[in-house]
C-alpha cells in the first residue's frame, strides 16, 4: 500500500526534522536579532549576506571551529551529555507534530502526552549542564531552572487536561481537524468554556516559562548569572544548547498553535495545509521575540507567585467550569 517502507520513511522524516530544528534555531537567532534591532530602532545584523541573512551561517562556522575544551573541575561525561539531553527531547517532540494532515512523522494517538513527557525531560539538560560545570553561577541557574519548570508544569498540565476533556482525544491531528475555521478554534470556543482565551494565555505564558524565555529567563539572567548554566560551555557545546532552546520554543509555539489556533487549518476554511501551520507558528514565535525585547525580567518570587496565585487558580477554575459545561450541555 505504502510505496516507501515505514522505516525508510521515518528516517527521512527524522533527518528532515533535525534539519528543520537546526535551521529554525539558526534563523530564529537571526529573526531575534533583526527583531530586537528594529524594536530598538537600529537594523541588527546586516554585513554578512543581504540583510545579514548569512549571519547564522557565519555564527555556526564560528561556533563549530571553536575549541571544545573542558574547564578545570567539570564532570567530563555529564558536561558533554547535557547539551544533547536538551536537544534530543526537543527534536523527538517534533515527531508527532502534524505539519499538515498528512505531513506528520508518526501520527500516534497519545501525541499530546508524548510531547509533555519529553518536555519534562529537557529541564534535565539544564540541570545537568549547570551541575557539571563546576561553576557557582551555573549551579544557581540550574536550581532556578528546575524549580521554575516544576512550578509551571502544573498550570500547563491543568490547561492541557481541560483541553483533553474538550477534545476527547490526545491525537494532535484529530485536535486540529476539530477546528476547521476561526470560529471553531479552541481559543474562541466559548461553548466549551467561557474562559478559553484565558486558557490560551495561560498555556502561552507557561510555555514561555517552560522554555526559559524572557521575561522568565531566570536561568540565564545575563545581568545576574552571566549566562547561567551555559557559562562554561565553549563552542558547539553552547551551540547545541542554543539549538535546543530554540527547538523548545518552536515546540511550545507549535503545540499552542495546534491546541488553540487550529494547526494547519485555514482561518476561513480555505486551502488548509502546512503553510497555515507555519504562518501561525511563526506569528507566535514572533510574539515570543517581541515579548522578550519589551519586558524586564521577573524576580523569582514574582515568578512563583504568578504561578501559584494566578495561573493555577485560574486554570483550576477553568477546569471546573469546563467540566460543568460538559456535564450540562
Amino acid at each position, binding site marked *: 500500500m505504502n510505496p516507501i517502507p515505514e522505516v525508510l520513511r521515518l528516517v527521512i522524516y527524522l533527518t528532515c526534522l533535525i534539519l528543520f530544528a537546526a535551521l529554525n534555531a539558526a534563523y530564529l537567532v537571526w529573526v531575534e536579532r533583526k527583531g*530586537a534591532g528594529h524594536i530598538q*530602532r537600529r537594523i541588527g545584523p546586516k554585513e554578512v549576506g543581504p540583510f545579514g541573512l548569512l549571519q547564522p551561517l557565519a555564527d555556526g562556522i564560528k561556533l563549530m571551529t571553536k575549541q571544545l575544551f573542558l574547564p578545570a573541575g567539570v564532570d567530563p561525561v555529564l558536561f558533554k551529555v547535557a547539551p544533547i539531553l536538551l536537544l534530543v527531547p526537543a527534536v523527538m517532540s517534533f515527531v508527532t507534530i502534524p505539519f499538515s494532515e498528512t505531513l506528520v512523522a508518526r501520527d500516534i494517538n497519545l501525541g499530546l502526552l508524548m510531547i509533555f513527557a519529553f518536555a519534562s525531560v529537557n529541564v534535565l539538560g539544564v540541570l545537568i549542564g549547570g551541575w557539571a560545570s563546576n561553576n557557582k553561577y551555573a549551579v544557581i541557574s540550574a536550581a532556578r531552572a528546575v524549580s521554575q519548570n516544576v512550578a509551571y508544569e502544573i498550570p500547563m498540565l491543568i490547561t492541557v487536561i481541560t483541553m483533553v476533556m474538550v477534545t476527547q482525544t490526545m491525537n494532535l491531528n484529530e485536535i486540529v481537524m476539530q477546528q476547521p475555521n476561526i470560529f471553531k478554534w479552541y481559543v474562541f470556543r466559548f461553548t466549551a468554556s467561557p474562559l478559553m482565551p484565558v486558557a490560551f494565555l495561560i498555556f502561552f505564558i507557561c510555555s514561555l516559562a517552560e522554555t526559559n524565555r524572557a521575561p522568565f529567563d531566570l536561568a540565564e539572567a*545575563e545581568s*545576574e548569572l552571566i549566562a547561567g548554566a551555559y557559562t562554561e560551555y565553549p563552542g558547539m557545546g553552547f551551540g547545541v544548547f542554543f539549538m535546543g532552546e530554540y527547538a523548545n520554543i518552536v515546540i511550545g509555539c507549535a503545540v499552542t498553535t495546534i491546541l488553540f489556533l487550529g494547526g494547519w487549518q485555514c482561518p476561513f476554511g480555505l486551502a488548509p495545509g502546512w503553510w497555515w501551520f507555519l504562518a501561525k507558528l511563526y506569528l507566535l514565535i514572533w510574539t515570543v521575540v517581541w515579548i522578550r525585547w*519589551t519586558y*524586564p*525580567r521577573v524576580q523569582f518570587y514574582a515568578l512563583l507567585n504568578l504561578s501559584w496565585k494566578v495561573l493555577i487558580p485560574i486554570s483550576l477554575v477553568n477546569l471546573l467550569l469546563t467540566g460543568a459545561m460538559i456535564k450540562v450541555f
Partner: protein
Amino acid sequence: MSEFALSQTQETFVMNLGPQHPATHGVLRVKLTMDGEYVVRAEPVLGYIHRMHEKMGENRTWAKFLPNTGRMDYLHALAYNHGHVMAVERAAGIEVPERAEYLRVITTELNRISSHLLWFGAFVLDLGGFTPLLYAFDDREQILDLLEGVTGSRLTYCYYRFGGVYNDVEDDFLVGTKAFISRLRSRLPMYHGLVTKNIILIKRLKDIGPIPPDMVTRYGATGPVARGSGFNFDLRKNEPYSVYPEFDFDIPVYTECDSMARYMVRMDEMEQSMRIIEQAIDKLPEGPVKAKKVPKTLKPPAGDYYCAVEAARGSFGVRIVSDGTNTPYRLKLRSPTYSNLSLFEEASEGMLLADALALMGSLDLVIPEIDR
C-alpha cells in the same frame, strides 16, 4: 524579602561578583557570601581603577588639574568640572560673570539629564529589559551632540575655566537645546509607559532594597539615594551655588525608601532639570563669559576651602588646602558614590541575589568616581 532567617549552621559559599560582571557596570568586585540565593554578606572590593587623582592634584598647578576632574565621574563630568572650578574660585576670590554662570548651569543640567538617561537604561538592563537602554541612548546621543557643539568633546568634558567657561555658545546650541527639551518631554511618557508602569518592574522595585533614613545619615549617602529616603536635601536648594537661586524648580522627594523611590527621584529630576534649562535659556544675559582679572598663575591665599556641588549621584565636594603656591597642598575629592556604595553591605544583607543587584543598580554606581 528580608524575613528570611539566616541560620548559622547552614553552609554558605563565596561568590565573586566581578570585577568583570554585567551588573557592576565597571570594574567593581563584590565578594558575596551566599546561602543558596540569599546574600549573607556582600563586601565591595574597590580600587581596580584607582588612579590617585588627589596625588596628581598635588603635583600640578590648579589649572592643570582641570582635565582630571572630567575623568572621575565620566557620566556627569561637568559637575565635577564645576566643583573644582568653584572651589578654586572661592579660594582665589575670582568673580564669575553672570553669562558664564548661566552657561555652566545649562550645560551641567544637560549633562545631568544625560547621566540620568544612561542610568535609566543601565538600570533597566540590570533588571533584564534591554530595549529601554537603547531608547535612552537615542536621547542621550542628542545631548552629547549638543554638548559636543559647545565643549568640543562628548564624554570627558573640560569646559569650565577659572572665572568663566572656555568659550561662548552659539545660537544654534540654544535652539537645539530647546528642541531637545520638547523632544524629551514627549519621550518621557513613553518611558513611563514602557518601564515605570510596567507591572514586572513595579514588582521588582517596590519595597525592595529599603534604605531607612537612619542608614542614610550614618553612611552619609547623598543625592537621589537620600532623596528617595525622604530627605529633602539637594545642594542646589540647600546650599545655593552658582545662579541656581534664580530658577524655579522642585526637588523630588520620595519617602518610600525603596528602589522604586530612588528610581522615581531620578525620573522626576530629569523633568526638573529641563525646567531649569528652559528658564536659564530664557534669562540668559549678554556679556562676557570669562572674568577679566584671572591671574595667569593662580596662587590662592593659604588656608583651606571647601566647596560642594550637586552631581547626578550626590554631593561632590572639593576640599582645598592651599599654602599660597601655584599648586595645591592637598586636594581632597569627596565623591558621592563612595559613601552611597558603602551602605550596600548593610542594606543588602539577607536579600535575594537578584534583589541585591536591583538595589545596587538603584545606587547608580560609576566606578571611576568611587575609585578616583
